[in-house]
């Protein structure tokens, strides 16, 4: 971790860092006449360089507060926020943080927030002036290049009010890139755009991620979320375990959060049996990391791997929903250890009963898996060695 300085441009982010964003136990409490209100309840979050992360959450869930923590706009009540290797709330004044922000991250707002009295070109040059980056004479050229990157080369001299909202947002992205920050933070960047403009903006983000930038974006739009490399859901001031998000995406956020709290994390060494055939199953298993193998044992005690399940997949649901004992052996892949989230049967059944959509989706998955199982049992080892990718979606 580096000690922040303010001149000329404080602490440029080191690209070789393991995590570009590292939140440790971040708590944020607001006080008003009605009393104290905890908006963030001990957030731990790590984001690696080059990730395209979508932050999703309902209104009031705390996602903007979370974003404010990362951008240095607001300060946490407790906990650490380390961005680009700098603890931005330690020994740094608000003013110093502004300078740090100008050099290290670009912000894209929902309402663009271009300075109305400056042309698009001047708007893009403004952060370079604040950060005092690049030679004075180079700034115009760089700003023109950025505007051309976002397709606005012909509108450089226009004032924001004279261009469309999509073009304003493109200009705002060009401005966010002005000081070449490694991290772009965007708050509902497509929230005020038509679908065509929104597509163009997301495509631009992909292009930026491909060129090595990290993007963290708050969004409501599922189509945008789908195009992000990682989704972080925040509910009631807490992050939902990403394994649950991937395994049971149709669950309500409230239930996901409940599962996050109830599930037990277990790690199995390579090859260790997790469930044996004919064993009573009393939990749902969700794979956080690594792979498991679903194995049928032949009469000659030869093992047939009928399926391989990876991160985001789950198992045990057939037995939980239909009763009975395990129809196959499940073991940790021989290639490496596996980390599982284990949810007790009663909790699972109670929540599923409250979430008909998830129940229906699970029913479909169960149906399909049973059919696959029967097919394998009847026709021998047809599926052996074929890895099934992904969990039920």
């Amino acid at each position: 971790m580096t000690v922040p300085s303010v001149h000329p441009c404080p602490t440029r982010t080191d690209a070789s860092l393991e995590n570009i964003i590292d939140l440790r136990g971040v708590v944020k409490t607001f006080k008003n006449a009605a009393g104290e209100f905890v908006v963030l309840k001990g957030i731990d979050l790590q984001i690696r360089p080059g990730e395209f992360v979508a932050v999703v959450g309902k209104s009031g869930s705390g996602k903007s507060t979370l974003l404010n923590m990362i951008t240095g706009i607001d300060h946490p009540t407790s906990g650490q926020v380390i961005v680009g290797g700098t603890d931005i709330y330690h020994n740094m004044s608000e003013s110093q943080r502004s300078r740090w922000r100008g050099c290290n991250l670009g912000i894209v707002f929902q309402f663009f927030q271009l300075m109305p009295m400056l042309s698009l070109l001047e708007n893009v040059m403004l952060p370079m002036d604040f950060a005092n980056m690049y030679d004075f004479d180079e700034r115009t050229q760089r700003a023109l290049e950025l505007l051309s990157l976002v397709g606005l080369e012909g509108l450089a001299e226009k004032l924001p009010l004279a261009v469309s909202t999509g073009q304003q947002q493109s200009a705002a992205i060009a401005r966010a890139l002005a000081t070449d920050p490694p991290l772009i933070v965007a708050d509902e960047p497509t929230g005020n755009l038509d679908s065509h403009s929104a597509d163009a903006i997301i495509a631009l983000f992909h292009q930026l991620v491909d060129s090595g930038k990290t993007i963290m974006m708050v969004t409501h739009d599922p189509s945008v979320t789908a195009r992000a490399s990682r989704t972080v859901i925040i509910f009631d001031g807490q992050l939902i375990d990403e394994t649950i998000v991937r395994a049971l995406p149709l669950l309500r956020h409230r239930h996901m959060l409940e599962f996050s709290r109830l599930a037990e994390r277990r790690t199995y060494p390579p090859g260790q049996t997790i469930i044996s055939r004919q064993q009573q199953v009393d939990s749902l298993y969700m794979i956080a990391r690594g792979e498991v193998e679903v194995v049928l044992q032949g009469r000659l005690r030869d093992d047939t791997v009928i399926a391989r399940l990876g991160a985001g997949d789950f198992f045990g649901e057939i037995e939980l929903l239909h009763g009975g004992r395990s129809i196959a052996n499940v073991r940790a892949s021989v290639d490496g250890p596996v980390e599982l989230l284990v949810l007790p049967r009663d909790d699972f059944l109670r929540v599923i009963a409250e979430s008909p959509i998830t129940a229906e989706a699970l029913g479909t998955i169960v149906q399909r898996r049973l059919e696959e199982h029967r097919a394998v049992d009847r026709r021998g080892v047809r599926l052996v060695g074929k890895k099934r990718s992904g969990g039920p979606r």
Partner: protein
Amino acid sequence: MRPRWRKVFLDLFEHKGRTLLVVLSIAIGVFSIGVISGAYVIISNDMSASYAANQPANVEIRMSDFDDDLLAAIRNLHEVGDAEGRRVFNMRVRSTQEDQWVTLDIVAVDDFATNVLNLLTPVAGVSAPGRNEILLEQEAVEALRVQVGDELVFQLPGGSLKTLTVVGIVQDSLTGVDDFLAPPCGYITLSTLPRLGQAQTFNRIYASMAEGQDDVLHIRTVADDLRERIERSGYMVVRTSISLTHEHPLASTVNAILGILLALGVLIVFLSSSLIANTLNALLNQHLRHIGVMKLVGGRNRQVFVMYLVLIMAFGVLSLLLAVPLGGQGAYALSAYIAEQLGFTLQGYRIVPLAFAVQIAIGLLVPLVSGLVPVVSGSRVTVLKAISGDLAREAEAGSGSRGRVKRETGWERFQTRVTAALARRGIQIPRPLLISLRNTFRRRGRLVLTLFTLTMGGAIFIAVFNVQITLDDYISAIGRYFLADVSLDFDRPYRLSEVEQLATQVEGVVDVEGWLFLSADVLDPDGMVVENIDILAPPADSVLVSPILVAGRWIQPGDERRLAISEAILAIFPDLQPGDLLRLKINGHEEDWEVVGIFKFVGREGILAYVPYEYIAAVSNLSNRSYSFRIVTTQHERAYQVMMGERLDSCFRQNGFHVRQAQAGLATLDKASESLDILVTFLLIMALLTASVGSMGLTGTMSMNVLERTREIGVMRAIGADDRAIMRTVIAEGMVIGMISWVLGVILSLPFSLLLSSIVSLAVFETPIALVFTPTGYFIWLGLVLVLSAVASIVPARNAARLTIREVLAYE
């Protein structure tokens, strides 16, 4: 308290800074009007009352020595109420502790106890001196730096020194009251005269009228009659002057100056009203949503109107609470200061009902009138417009999603094109500065009002400096009529060659001129004396007189019974032109003199005329001789002149000359300048008050701008602007406004200077004078306006820098 009145109350105290700004801006106007109107009333009452209380003589006659017999004869005249004789002469005096000689007018009074005319007001010590004792006028005390009990050294014409003890300090409201150039006075009894080498006789008569003490014509007739009687008795009358009992000679001047101050006070009120309008406009804009909500829940236009009206009245009442007591104190302090300067006493502290009423009227009406338009339009706003006000603003700011693509205005295109054109020529304006420059012109109505107040303040400020330099220039121009570096006066005539020979032996002396003096009466066609004139007779080719001619020519060698006369004569003979004849009475003889030229001079100092020395010397049998000499030295600074005066004085005394006095030329002028400086100080105070209203206006404008642009400031912070960058942007905007106002102020200062200098010169000198410009005012104002703009923007700028981004960028 009902909810809506509670809202008014909260509005008043919620934004203390804004309330303070509005209250102060009203209060400054109310205060200045209170001070000036109060002082106007106090001074016009007390000045003349104090003057009358000292029993001013209606007629003063300067004449040759006389005794009690003539005085008794005059007292017996039925037109004369009372008459007194005094002896007035001047002498060089210093304190025993100081080396510096001061010329003192010494007034010998027969009996202080029975004295009924031109009374003195005791200030300290005794009120009647005994033998070999002296009373000093306050001004003399300052000049001599002595206290009661100290000894004073008097230098007699023969060179011997005598001492008198200072036994009291008095205030003389009458002697030399309207003469800027009069020396300070001391008062002794007749019994002290021999000690100072003076005869125990009178040389002045002071008489009051039995009736018609305020009737100029009556007094003049009696004065003429007196003069004739005196002359018939074989005495020579040098000069007659008259005054009214109940009118201070400077009343019209003081009133004219208070009038100017009043005009400036009214201007301040006017300027503060534009500040109020600005602030209320912004307030109503900020309250648009409140108004919308109030209407939504059933508030009627009238109710909303009354609420805001009450708010405005509350601003007025608060400023009155502040300004009325201060204004009353200020009025009395100003009156006391003027009274001290002009030597009269006030009748004591009091509340002036007129000033009180005017202040209340202004304090309530001005905010009401200036706030009426914004309040009426604010209360009429529709619910829809009021509720959607924020959205409208957002769209206007170009950041709203609902705003459609708009066309840039001509002004906006002009701005971006100019910047782009400059950039193409390699002149890059940093974007934060561009923000300041373009922000300046965003709220044009507000900008105009702010510029108006600041420009007015600046124009007056600059004008005051121009007026000061104009007055100084005029005073020194007057000096060129009769003052050399050193004036050397003797008690008897000496040959020019004799004096010249000795004087040129003193190192530093360049030139010596012998001058003569004469007094004459101007007669009207009926033979009545209408005015006294002082005739100066320098050599026709004198290098010491550079007249400002209004008409005709200057005197020439060989002129006989020809004179150049000051333009004050036009007050008596408005049609007088060069070539006309003027009937004069000189030494008892009536003669017709031809006017060859008319020149500019201070009207208040009486009428002055110049004739060639050569002619006067011939007719007075003083050929090549004179009592009075004007000496030019190598250097002309005051200190050098004083030193040369001392040197010449001792040189001539050592050589047996009967020196009356050797006086530095600038000494008298400095005194005149000092009295004008008081006036200039007042003008400057008013200019500073105007400027402070202007800078308060700027503070208000900058605060409102910052308040309206919090979102933009938040965005700037978000993209990397630190505290300094934000503050620089705000302060630069304030300074741009300051600079624009300076340029406008420079332009506007021209008519202001002309107006102010002509009003002041007419009031003080009774003649219009040519305006002179000085860069001082322009530069000082430039510095001041930049400092004021920076200071005015610092608080809003700090507030801007303190805004946290979270406050200004609401995400959800």
